[in-house]
């Protein structure tokens, strides 16, 4: 078994609720709401207007700078282009399409004549036009990662750890569509010019590993499946690199700094579908689970499907549900409304009706140091908490708060139930604000000095 990373926690994986349930196709929704921001970077500009007829795969959002285009996920009429609630909080410009249920495929979607004869540039162009982003949740534009990594990357890693509890979409994909994963991995190997791709999988998905190994053997693919220790956050990009290569990504750096590039299982499948069939990202596998869901399931639905449709398909919610989460229980975002759509990075919708948080009224740190032992990036959460709560920015910097990736391991393990991760989110913002203020002050001082100089000369 591969080397482990430092720290981490062992939450109960809760995957039994859905890991034996095949991915179901959701009944087509009457309407989809497609947010114009489903990637890391600036939001897209809508290129359709109300009343337009769109087909599946047609581009409806154009990106600028860092980003990826957005496509219609159903065919039908554009009903509205307006801000709507979305899973990252608040409202964002969205394109609302009324589904005509015809599922007409756009003329823009064309299967390449000979996928295996394509050049690297052609493949990257296809990945870019297909709107592929990191589908594990980080949503970093994939074409940028590939073109930026070529040359410096010698280890391509497919992230099949799926370390967040409850989520089983990747596991089911391994079992049901291993050829897409392996096919995508082969294209990635070609693009990066490496002779081996490593798929890291937590060893609680033995049958998934076997299923992929079978395809690898049949195709003689340059792919190795590496079973990993079952531990959160094994699927964190930096932790996965550490477990597979033994190397650590430098602070503030990307995996490419140590010659690694990491792609999610879903992303890999999307690359395969784009290169072989020309299909952009229009569908997503979502695990709907948690104590508040009556019949948990793995569902595949068009991007933009309202979450309510998914919940309906799972028998609805229990009345006592008090929390709805987009994403996993460790890093997902709690929602204040069910009126949000499925986005490219939405891997799970969880509903809780029991006290999974076990909140206490007056949390008191007992200095047990369990947070220090659990932090996968070697921080000291208990001290950071004290500084952050007092707004001591310099001390926070000294403790490297910006290295915190908000994985939630410290909060999870904390016996006193301190709100550590939350405090670090605000603490990081303090540090950023201070840096911005310092920069502005320095610029102002420089400008004043220059003005003085000018005056003198005059």
């Amino acid at each position, binding site marked *: 078994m591969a080397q482990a990373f*430092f720290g981490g*926690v062992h*939450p109960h994986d809760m995957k039994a609720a859905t890991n034996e349930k095949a991915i179901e196709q959701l009944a087509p929704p009457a309407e989809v709401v497609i947010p114009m921001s489903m990637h890391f970077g600036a939001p897209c500009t809508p290129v359709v207007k109300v009343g337009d007829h769109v087909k599946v795969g047609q581009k409806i959002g154009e990106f600028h700078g860092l980003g990826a285009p957005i496509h219609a996920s159903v065919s039908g009429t554009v009903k509205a282009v307006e801000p709507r609630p979305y899973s990252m909080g608040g409202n964002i410009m969205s394109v609302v399409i009324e589904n005509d249920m015809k599922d007409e495929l756009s003329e823009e979607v064309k299967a390449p004549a000979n996928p295996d004869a394509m050049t690297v540039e052609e493949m990257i162009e296809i990945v870019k036009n297909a709107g592929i982003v990191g589908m594990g949740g980080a949503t970093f534009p994939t074409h940028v990662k590939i073109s930026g990594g070529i040359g410096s990357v010698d280890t391509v890693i497919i992230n099949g750890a799926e370390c967040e*509890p409850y989520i089983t979409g990747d596991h089911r994909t391994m079992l049901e569509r291993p050829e897409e994963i392996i096919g995508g991995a082969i294209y990635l190997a070609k693009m990066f010019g490496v002779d081996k791709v490593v798929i890291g999988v937590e060893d609680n998905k033995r049958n998934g590993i076997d299923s992929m190994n079978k395809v690898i053997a049949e195709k003689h693919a340059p792919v190795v499946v590496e079973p990993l220790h079952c531990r959160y956050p094994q699927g964190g990009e*930096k932790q996965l690199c550490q477990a597979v290569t033994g190397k*650590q990504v*430098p*602070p503030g750096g990307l995996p490419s700094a140590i010659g690694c590039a990491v792609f999610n299982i879903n992303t890999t499948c999307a690359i395969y579908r784009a290169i072989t069939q020309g299909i952009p990202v229009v569908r997503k596998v979502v695990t709907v689970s948690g104590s508040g869901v009556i019949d948990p399931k793995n569902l595949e639905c068009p991007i933009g499907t309202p979450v*309510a*449709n998914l*919940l309906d398909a799972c028998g*609805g*919610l229990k009345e006592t*549900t*008090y*929390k*709805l989460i987009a994403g996993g*229980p*460790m890093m*997902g*975002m*709690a*929602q*204040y*409304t*069910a009126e949000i759509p499925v986005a490219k990075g939405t891997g799970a919708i*969880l509903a809780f009706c029991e006290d*999974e*948080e*076990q909140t*206490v*009224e007056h949390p*008191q*740190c*007992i*200095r*047990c*140091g369990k947070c*220090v*032992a659990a*932090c*996968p*990036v*070697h*921080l*000291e959460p*208990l*001290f950071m908490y004290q500084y952050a709560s007092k707004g001591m920015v310099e001390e926070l910097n000294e403790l490297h708060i910006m*290295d915190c990736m*908000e994985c*939630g391991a410290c*909060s*999870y*393990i904390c*016996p006193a*139930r301190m*709100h550590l*991760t*939350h405090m670090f*989110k605000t603490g990081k913002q303090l540090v950023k604000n201070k840096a911005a203020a310092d920069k502005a002050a320095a610029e102002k001082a420089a400008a004043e000095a220059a003005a003085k100089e000018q005056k003198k000369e005059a």
Partner: protein
Amino acid sequence: MTDYKNLKLIATSSPHIRSAENTRSIMLDVIIAMLPALGWSVWAFGVRALMVTCVSVIACVVWEWLYRKLLKRPQSVGDLSAVVTGMLLAFVCPVDVTYFAIIVGGFFSIVVAKQLFGGIGKNFVNPALVGRAMMLASFAGTMTTWAQFQAKSHLFGSTADVVTAATPMSYLHAKNLQGLLDSGVTLSDMFLGRIGGSLGEVSALMVIAGGIYLLARKIISWHTPVAYIATVAVLTFIFPRGNDSLTWMLFNLFGGGLMLGAFFMATDYATSPVTGKGQLIYGIGCGLITVFIRYFGSYSEGVCYSILMMNLLTALIDKYVKPQRFGVVKSEKKEAASK
């Protein structure tokens, strides 16, 4: 499509799940780990041992409750930490300690050492040890009267007629290992606890059993106890008082409060460093001072004061011993420093 508008959703920050372990369950585990030693002390010194422990626990809980009540602070006796302090305080007292003394000791432990500094997690010295240090200064007589093994102490009233004896520690302090052996105490007596001494300390075996339970339940990490015990072992082996290094070392390890100190006192969360490296330094420091006091001090036992002294250095250790930053390899750091 169902309308989910009438759901009362709360939107809090991630993570949304927590491990089952909490402060209370940790304290409960510590209490469980102390039960074997308590059982042995009752067998060794009679029911009075149990009575002393109960009085100490009740005193500590009541002091804590009263303090929080009077100062209108959120009540904290539910976290069971006062119970742990009470048990530990009783464990470091002789069976014939007066009930009055232990109630005063409990006040010092809970109110002076812990609550005045803000309560659980905020105290900078181990409450039970501070209580003991204070009792040793104020009630020197009753704190240094050691009943013989299985001498019958009265539950109430005068304990003046109890058969007392010098503890093994006083023989060791006088560098008289031979005298101790001649008095009929064997190594297995020391290990099992068929000797006189403080309530919870006499049986090294029972304390180690509790310590192993704490390690297995991941309540404590191995760093502090291993560093502490190893330091004492190495020092006493290299510098024996007498001819037989090994016997001298083993008597030093099993005698006095070393095992209780290493597993239950030095590992106290609030007063020990939070990093593994820091805990090693802290454990070694405890070991050094313990041997120093035992060899050169006027007291025969040094565990209590050594831990208290290292408690004071904990903040300093935590300030300077930091985890290696993720992604920065040691050699690189050195290179950067030399540039």
